[in-house]
């Protein structure tokens, strides 16, 4: 069996999750605090990937990143980045596609904290940044964990966007979900089954661990 698609899948999921974690915290913090009128618009944009067919998203990214268009051309000429049919393009697409899975749990977690926690911190002379890092984030650990795992699992399971923007290039953009499709098309059911079974088991274990952790199951083993 060719392990490359699986390696690629988890590499993509890891990088995507890491980027999402960094990007989503400021977005979730802003959304949980703001009284701005454009908040519903931003919330809608963040949540769109939940309901939009992945092919729609993939199609527009394909068009936008294409060197024949202004934005793709600018990326290509000025930064030397080609996002279509490349691993970099997959990362960008995955970050956008999995954004709600990271932002929403963190936003919900931050909103559920009593506002007196941050106010207490402010009256002690602590900056907003210090308050976020030392008080708010440590008290929403379950939400952070949920966000990390959901975006990881969602990226592992992504198909449509990858197919649209990445195609099916072995070692570059051929992730496990695409490989499965490929093997089925070639009537190679046993190979498709191996990939499927591995993805099935890994996602099951990851999600189970999260539910156990957030349900306090592991706390019994900590003195």
């Amino acid at each position, binding site marked *: 069996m060719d392990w490359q698609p699986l390696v690629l899948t988890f590499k993509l999921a890891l990088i995507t999750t890491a980027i999402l974690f960094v990007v989503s915290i400021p977005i979730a913090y802003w959304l949980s605090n703001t009284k701005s009128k454009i908040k519903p618009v931003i919330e809608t944009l963040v949540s769109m990937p939940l309901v939009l067919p992945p092919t729609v998203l993939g199609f527009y990214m394909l068009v936008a990143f294409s060197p024949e268009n202004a934005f793709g051309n600018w990326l290509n000429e000025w930064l030397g980045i080609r996002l279509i049919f490349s691993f970099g393009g997959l990362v960008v697409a995955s970050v956008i596609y999995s954004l709600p899975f990271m932002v929403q749990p963190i936003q919900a977690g931050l909103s559920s904290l009593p506002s007196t926690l941050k106010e*207490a911190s402010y*009256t002690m002379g602590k900056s907003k940044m210090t308050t976020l890092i030392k008080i708010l984030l440590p008290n929403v650990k379950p939400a952070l964990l949920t966000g990390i795992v959901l975006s990881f699992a969602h990226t592992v399971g992504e198909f449509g966007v990858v197919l649209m923007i990445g195609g099916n290039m072995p070692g570059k953009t051929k992730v496990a979900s695409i490989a499965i499709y490929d093997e089925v098309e070639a009537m190679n059911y046993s190979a498709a089954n191996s990939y499927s079974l591995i993805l099935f088991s890994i996602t099951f274990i990851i999600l189970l661990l999260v539910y156990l952790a957030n349900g306090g199951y592991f706390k019994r083993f900590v003195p």
Partner: protein
Amino acid sequence: MIRLNLKKILKSTGGKMVLDLELNIAKGQFVTLFGESGAGKTSTLRMLSGLLKPDIGTITVDGITWFDSNKNINLVPQQRKVGYVFQDYALFPNMTVRQNLEYALQRNQDKSIIEELLDFAQLSELQQRKPETLSGGQKQRVALARALVQRPEILILDEPLSALDLKMRIKLQEYILQIHKQFKLTTILVSHDIGEIVKLSDCVFELQNGKVIKKGAAADFFGLNKTSAKFRFSGEVLKIEREDVIYVISVLIGNDIIKVVSDRTEANGLKVGDQVLVASKAFNPIIQKL
């Protein structure tokens, strides 16, 4: 000296309310804001500490302007450094008692104050515990100690004892008074408990619909000095019963229920839930050690 002169339109569940007040609080005083829920007490405290921005007005503390809508001055809460004890304590759940106190340390501040406060609040044995494992009274002591770490000159207490039982309340009242004197604080308290107010404060402001409707020294305020009674207690009316021509009024004073006989005119002016003063001067009370 704290001078507040504020206007703010508050939108609450009961509709719009205009908070419009002028308060002058002398340094070192213990002041209580008294009044019904929704009268604007907490909003006043939040505006003083910088957590809520007034629409117009000024706040000056010891000659320094904290807020001036005309000059566009508005110090953030971080610069005002007021010791604020929240009604829900607002202890940081991710930190131990000790870490909660240490978090409040200012840059380059001497750490010895942590030991001093842990000692003073009798928290030394609890210092490694997380807030969730503490009782209400213990949490309140942590919140008080934590508010004092940065050595504020102003201490704000928003109904600090309302969630505690009577015994704990009385113990903590003494503790608060001790803190107020020892740390030479100007303390502003929000409270509904008349006994507590009389015991603790020098001066009381009564707020109603966002305005100060009455102010005075604590004892005068509740009319305690008008009766030259031999003994007197304040309590809450629990029950008014009619028995033939007289009325029996049950009054809760502390943990005890006292029955007072009254005539119809007196009883008609009272309803269940009223705060009343029970006093007597014709009889000499008997005191016995328990």
